């Protein structure tokens, strides 16, 4: 820190203020003093000191109140209480309330200098920690932009070239060559999807979706999710069947992320199911809850993996044959569901398929109005 450190001393005894000023004048400090609590708090606000000494026993507002007010002004300011021998107990109390240390009266010049230095060290550490924390936040926020640009755009350019090449060559390629072109495109597409999913898991503040919660229709969520997964399922010859209770309750939520959550689970079901099988989606009311279950006849999840599948960056270790996931889809799904006040559970056995159940608090006695979103959806289909 290049700046001179700022110290504020609040004490009603002139002699204490004077002697502190004298003792500390040798150090490279900028010092202010206040003769009572009100003046002290006022100065704390204007002068923004690094370290504040506060006498606990003053007429007018007490040292404790001063400490509280300083906390409100800036909790990173380091406070040290000055106290007589008789009031050590209150010094301890002050420290419990956030004071950094205490200085018992009478004190020697060296004691004051030492405790001042320590207070300033502490202040530096507090500020550094804060700066590091902020930097970490910034990095996290910028990570999205950096990864988007640095990873996604070269990949997208490669893909664009492939698209244009296969477009131009479409009538000249043998079926075999065409197939290889498609594989390259598929793999690059998967890689871009992976980057996209990671980005979302890392950068999206799930809590913020709560701001846009609105009554949301379960049938709409399910049909949108199915619409999104269906192309993949059709390619694998997997049928997605849905059975939604007619008078199913709506939920309070964010349609976009709910669709994403269902897509993640249904997408997994398709990914881990053998060709020709089917995935069952059912939605029912259960008392004051809505339950969506997604059942597949896929490879299942081993009991070793089962407890961890909702954790970030976890992919199964036990199988080598099938395509690997990004390791964040289910973690993100769980966070989305929990942000909606719901929960997700899974039953599975290796080789026996898996059943995921999503439960949400139902929005009862509030028939869902067809919002513009729903209308738009209806028109599209």
């Amino acid at each position, binding site marked *: 820190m290049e700046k001179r450190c700022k110290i504020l001393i609040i004490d009603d005894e002139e002699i204490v203020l004077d002697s502190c000023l004298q003792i500390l004048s040798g150090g490279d400090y900028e010092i202010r003093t206040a003769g009572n609590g009100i003046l002290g708090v006022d100065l704390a606000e204007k002068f923004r000191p690094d370290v504040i000494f506060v006498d606990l026993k003053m007429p007018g507002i007490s040292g404790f109140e001063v400490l509280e007010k300083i906390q409100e002004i800036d909790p990173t300011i380091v406070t040290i209480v000055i106290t007589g021998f008789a009031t050590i107990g209150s010094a301890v109390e002050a420290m419990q309330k956030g004071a950094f240390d205490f200085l018992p009266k009478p004190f020697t010049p060296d004691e004051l200098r030492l405790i001042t230095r320590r207070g300033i060290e502490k202040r530096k550490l507090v500020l550094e920690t804060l700066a590091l924390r902020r930097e970490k936040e910034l990095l996290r926020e910028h990570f*999205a*932009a950096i990864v*988007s*640009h640095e990873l*996604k*755009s*070269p990949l*997208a*350019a490669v*893909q*664009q*070239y492939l*698209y*244009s*090449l*296969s*477009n*131009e060559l479409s009538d000249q390629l043998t079926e075999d060559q065409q197939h290889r072109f498609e594989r390259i495109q598929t793999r690059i597409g998967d890689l871009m999807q992976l980057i996209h999913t990671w*980005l*979302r898991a890392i950068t999206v503040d799930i809590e913020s979706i709560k701001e846009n919660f609105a009554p949301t229709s379960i049938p709409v969520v399910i049909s949108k999710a199915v619409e999104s997964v269906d192309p993949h399922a059709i390619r694998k010859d997997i049928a997605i069947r849905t059975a939604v209770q007619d008078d199913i309750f709506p939920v309070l939520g964010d349609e*976009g992320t709910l669709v994403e959550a269902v897509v993640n689970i249904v997408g997994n079901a398709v990914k881990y199911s053998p060709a020709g099988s089917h995935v069952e989606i059912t939605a029912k009311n259960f008392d004051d809850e809505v339950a969506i279950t997604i059942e597949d006849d896929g490879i299942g999840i081993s009991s070793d993996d089962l407890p961890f599948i909702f954790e970030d960056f976890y992919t199964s270790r036990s199988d080598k044959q099938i395509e690997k996931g990004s390791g964040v889809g289910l973690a993100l799904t769980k966070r989305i569901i929990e942000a909606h006040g719901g929960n997700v559970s899974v039953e599975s056995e290796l080789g026996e398929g898996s059943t995921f159940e999503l439960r949400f608090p139902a929005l009862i006695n509030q028939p869902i109005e067809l919002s513009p979103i729903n209308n738009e959806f209806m028109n599209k289909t």
Partner: protein
Amino acid sequence: MDTKKKLLMIDDDPDFVEPIMAILENAGYEVDAKYNPDEGFEALKSGSYDLLLLDVLMGRGAEGIMIARKIGDDEKLRETPILIITGMREQIAFLFPGQPVHPSFVPTDELIEKPVEPDLLLEKVSTLIKMAEERKAQSELN
């Protein structure tokens, strides 16, 4: 196509311009390309184009968006349909909170994400051109 439709593409990444131009030219369009927003805007003003392909997040910040806004404010230019191409769908939403799909800069525009599949690209381009032509015919009637 009797007369070749003329398109302008503004994108600062030549590695997108080249393959996208190839697809469009292959389909019989005539395509001009500009690699920075200012030159692109000048070209748009001086030429007569049937459609603009615009990379919306060029360079630092979002110069493409500034261009789109400028076009939207211009009586004449705003009649040109725009196909907005973006590498970052997510960030579009950040830039325009509360507009989940995309902002409408001009009466006829649409947004697609890079990379663009040839069939989708060609479909969007022809649909937008057709929509703009219908709009024009309609306004001439009134």
